[in-house]
């Protein structure tokens, strides 16, 4: 409270007025209280019901008690306000309303391509760069890990159903198809909670009858046999999971 300019000025004036209002004996005993003394006195009066120093006349104790409560409340508000200022000043060095900022979307780098070894930039087991001995990344794994790795890529490496909230901007990646040999570009879109909502495939999967290039898939969280899962929605018109353009 003492650090707050307007409060300090008001209490200083209060101290002067109070002292002026006392008779000469009380004035002599008060020894001209400072603002800090006044704050301490009223707060103690509020807390204990008894005057903290001799400046408090018995008749004025009730009023001091009331003032003390008000000052305690004011102190809390000022403290809160001061803490907020500190947070803001550390972030921006200027007085502004503090708000939590959404994290920036991650920018993913282009997949690396290595010439001459069939690497398609997908990290798939078949695409791992062999070393001078002709062994691949899978060869260096424990059998269980290699199996899990291979199984994952055998699923076609489906795009992530959930990412960190705030990443709404899509990212494009080169992905292996569930069919051997096919690699295509895929863009995934997420909602504000990081849930997958749409995927655009830049291919017709060699099925030009059923797919345009590009075509979209829409996703939603649906109850599926005991669990809510992020699944492709079907087009009510065709019963297909593909939404052609």
């Amino acid at each position, binding site marked *: 409270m003492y650090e707050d300019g307007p409060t300090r000025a008001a209490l200083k004036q209060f101290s002067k007025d109070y002292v002026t209002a006392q008779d000469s004996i009380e004035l002599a005993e008060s020894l001209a209280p400072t603002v800090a003394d006044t704050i301490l006195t009223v707060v103690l009066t509020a807390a204990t019901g008894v005057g903290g120093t001799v400046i408090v006349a018995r008749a004025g104790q009730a009023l001091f008690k009331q003032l003390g409560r008000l000052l305690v409340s004011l102190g809390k508000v000022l403290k809160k306000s001061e803490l907020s200022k500190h947070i803001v000043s550390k972030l921006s060095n200027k007085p502004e309303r503090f708000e939590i900022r959404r994290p920036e979307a991650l920018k993913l780098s282009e997949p690396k391509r290595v010439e001459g070894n069939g690497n398609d930039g997908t990290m798939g087991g078949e695409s791992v760069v062999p070393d001078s001995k002709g062994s691949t990344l899978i060869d260096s794994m424990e059998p269980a890990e290699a199996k899990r790795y291979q199984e994952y890529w055998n699923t076609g490496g489906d795009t992530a159903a959930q990412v960190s909230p705030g990443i709404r901007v899509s990212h494009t990646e080169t992905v292996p198809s*569930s*069919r051997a040999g096919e690699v295509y570009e895929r863009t995934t879109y997420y909602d504000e909670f990081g849930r997958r909502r749409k995927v655009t495939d830049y291919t017709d999967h060699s099925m030009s009858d059923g797919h345009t290039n590009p075509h979209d898939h829409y996703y939603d969280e649906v*109850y599926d*046999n005991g669990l809510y899962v992020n699944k492709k929605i079907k087009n009510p018109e065709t*019963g297909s999971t*593909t939404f052609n353009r």
Partner: protein
Amino acid sequence: MNNSVRIKVLDLIDSGYWKSVQWKEWADAVILKFDEPPYWVIELSIVKNSGEAISILRESLAEVHYKDDINHKSIILGYMFLRYKEKEINLKEFLTLAWQETEAEEDVGSPSNSDIFEMYEACNNSSGADEKFESIVDRVCKNFSYNAECAAKALLEVNGYK
């Protein structure tokens, strides 16, 4: 009415085998038959499109935390096959739908995603009226016979409630 029927109705609509005419007819018959028909059946009788119908059924299954051991992929593929057999869709359309259905998750007992694509390609490379095409049709029918059987059984159970 048990939950098994509810999920089988979902399969029928999800596969596209039942259109609004069929599910409304079924729901109306169930409403007439039972003194206190389930609420989801009443809702089903008034929805207009398959998307809404599927949402109602999924939500009602979620409310009862329904879970079963049957792989419904087999049944859904079976209904898709029946759509082809009943000439609602042609062979290429059927194979495209079946390929999409097995794209994310395959089913033991049903043709694999790559098998379905092979059949699709073979179909694409034939004129549609030659011997080669007939052999493709035979192969498709043979491959999806298990699914057709699963779908027929499920349909029988659902219709038993009318």
